[in-house]
């Protein structure tokens, strides 16, 4: 691409690149769908020895002929795969095709699980509730990552920011009232953000190294302060209580949807707002345009008068505070108390969600939900059967991320200036 090309040429050029990439991606997606279809048609249907599958939705049981379900689902998915391979889905239909394929495959999978063990009832709503509960901190962490990395600062320290938030929420929530802990979490996340911003923006430290070190620091500091104060005096310092459940009037009485989305605590509702807010702000506001500009081409942004460093500082702080809020979910949002390393690697899964979701708020949210679902499957289905090795299931998000980053299902590209310090000349 020549740099002197006028804007119109550039657009045409990009589109050409897009279609050539698209052909390969289209076929790879078709293969992926095809594999799912074949698994369902051949493997699952032969593994099911008759019987009916019981899918329970909030007390209402839906019975399906297990084997026939797997066969029908397999055929439908293969049809989707064929369409994907021959014609491809449009820009808008692609996520729907993927979503429908996924849901259908899960129905076949549940049919198989339901006939395997002693406990045939698959609690679908319970599984989805668990998914959301597990996904909320991942979503918040991933939004933090999106905000930082869109501004050009790599955030590997999500784990540390969440851990600091979890710790501060428990402490502040104990000393004051539970909900005040939220502010503690925001402040602690922001504190970690100050370190990330200062060392990466001002002192130009390699941001990945910095993130790793900040994670160690957060684990060390929270562990140290937990042992020094909270472990012995847990009544005074580590009994924050949990945030109450808020039922949204009317909405929460909708069957299935209500208990899934509208009977939750304040952190969950804040998460909804933040998903929406970050998405709109990033792509529809002046601030968002500037943020994306400093993440892609800080020099150009500087040339048109955007204060690159100031905006980077601000965005890293906002992002880190959001990660801190995600941390609060582990303490005052669920179990009501801090324990060492309570975030247990969720920050890294959130990082994976950022990349898997291609640095977009919607994508990252979808990825976080998918990862949450994989973990929920592992937790919930162990009641139904021991035919699935839960550890192997738990690997799926990570393997999926590797596959995504390797470009097997479409090109993943980070913001161009992500991780590069900007020094004004």
């Amino acid at each position, binding site marked *: 691409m020549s740099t002197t090309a006028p804007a119109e040429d550039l657009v045409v050029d990009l589109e050409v690149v897009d279609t050539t990439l698209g052909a390969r991606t289209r076929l790879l997606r078709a293969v992926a769908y095809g594999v799912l279809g074949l698994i369902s048609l051949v493997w699952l249907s032969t593994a099911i020895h008759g019987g009916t599958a019981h899918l329970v939705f909030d007390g209402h049981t839906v019975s399906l002929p297990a084997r026939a379900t797997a066969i029908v689902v397999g055929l439908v998915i293969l049809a989707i795969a064929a369409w994907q391979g021959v014609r491809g889905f449009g820009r808008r239909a692609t996520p729907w095709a993927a979503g429908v394929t996924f849901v259908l495959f899960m129905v076949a999978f549940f049919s198989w699980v339901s006939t395997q063990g002693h406990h045939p009832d698959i609690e679908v709503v319970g599984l989805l509730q668990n998914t959301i509960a597990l996904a909320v901190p991942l979503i918040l962490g991933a939004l933090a990552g999106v905000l930082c990395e869109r501004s050009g600062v790599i955030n590997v320290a999500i784990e540390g920011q969440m851990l600091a938030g979890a710790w501060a929420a428990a402490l502040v929530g104990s000393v004051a009232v539970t909900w005040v802990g939220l502010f503690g979490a925001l402040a602690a996340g922001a504190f970690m953000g100050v370190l990330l911003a200062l060392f990466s923006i001002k002192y130009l430290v390699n941001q990945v190294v*910095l993130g790793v070190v900040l994670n160690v620091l957060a684990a060390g500091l929270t562990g140290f302060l937990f042992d020094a104060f909270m472990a012995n005096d847990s009544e005074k310092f580590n009994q924050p209580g949990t945030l109450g459940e808020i039922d949204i009037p009317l909405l929460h009485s909708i069957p299935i949807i209500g208990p899934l989305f509208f009977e939750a605590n304040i952190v969950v509702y804040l998460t909804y707002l933040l998903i929406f807010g970050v998405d709109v702000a990033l792509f529809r506001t002046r601030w968002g345009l500037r943020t994306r500009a400093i993440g892609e081409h800080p020099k150009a942004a500087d040339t048109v008068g955007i204060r690159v460093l100031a905006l980077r500082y601000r965005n890293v702080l906002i992002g880190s505070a959001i990660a801190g809020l995600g941390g609060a979910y582990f303490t005052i949002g669920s179990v009501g108390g801090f324990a060492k390393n309570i975030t247990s690697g969720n920050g890294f899964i959130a990082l*994976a969600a950022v990349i898997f979701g291609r640095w977009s708020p919607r994508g990252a949210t979808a990825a976080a939900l998918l990862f949450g679902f994989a973990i929920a499957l592992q937790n919930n289905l162990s009641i139904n059967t021991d035919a699935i090795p839960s550890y192997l299931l738990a690997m799926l998000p990570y393997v999926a991320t590797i596959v995504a980053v390797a470009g097997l299902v479409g090109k993943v590209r980070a913001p161009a200036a992500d991780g590069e*310090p900007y020094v004004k000349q």
Partner: protein
Amino acid sequence: MSATTVTPETPAPDAAPKRQRSQAWDTALVTLLSFVTALFIGAILIAISDRQTRDSFQYFGHYPGDTLRFAWSAIWHTYQALFYGAVYNPNTAANHNLAGYLGPISETLTNATPLIAGGLAVGVAFRAGLFNIGGQGQIIIGAVCAGFVGFHWHMPAGIHLVAAVLAGLAGGAVWGGLAGLLKARTGAHEVITTIMLNYVAINLLGYLLSVRGFQAPPYGQAIANSVDSNAQLPLLLGDSLRVHAGLILSIAAAVLVWWLLTYSRLGFRLRAVGANPNAARTAGMSVENSYVVVMLISGALCGLAGVSQVLGTNPAITGDIDSGIGFDAITVALLGRANPVGTVFAGLLFGGLRAGSPLMQQYAPNELVQVIQALIVLFIAAPAVIRAIFRLKTSGSTVGADLAKGWNG
């Protein structure tokens, strides 16, 4: 990183040795001051965590001496315990036996063994411009392979040990090489793939520890069969001390890596690729091939850390076989400035901190060691902070700055 932030060094030819020496001195000074600053911040934490100091602080206005005295005593006892645990303990030395005299040093060396190997692994990758965060996964896979050969096969002494060690190296190399291959073939950033491979390895280990044939009977606990005594690394200083032959392997690995990077053609290629992949490619070197090779080497070195864990320190694999070495290795490599000699010393220092922490625990929570470690590395990565605190003159040396690049780089 854009070339704007690294000042190209072009000293006059005659000034070069002097400049080099002053830069080495400067590096040593910054390292030392980083350590001192980290200990100082650690001391503040100790004082805050000490109950007596906190209580006396309430009447600080009337008797400030009390607070200072209690604080000083807490700090002194904590660091003294750290020293006793890591270097020399007069209390155990009073027993007048080998374990009494050399016990602390033996613990330091035992803890340093895998840290040195892991630090070398991260350092070698650094030199080729790659950041291997996957030490944890590579150590786990290395340990699993070494451990499996160690307990599943039964071979004569000597051969069995060699086979188990090689299996561990190979396991680590495969896990690391996978990330290298992905980077070379698809451009997938090694930081992301190695983090993901860590979690794949953790879950794989969890799975294996629940499978008959790997898990030890009576299958109640997540622990693998014990390694045959034939496959265990011999103890170096008798049965009373834990230090084992893995230390010799780690030191040998350090010498090998030093030779590799300094004198071999391969090492030159790796450094060239690390310094400027485009220039290396123009000069006819295969950058992709270098990525694969260096990740194989790095993975094998992590495999060695896993080997020393499972064939030396604790001869049965548990879920915690890595025990944080994968991440500590990064701090070791940074402190050692990705240089084999520096890495050995950094490994000894952090090994000492690990060895001292159990004894220190009666005075302060043992996460203190983690905090000190993180702070040291943080200051070393940002020497400008240390220079500002101690009002040193600025010079061009920074570690890691030449590594600062994005996901796409």
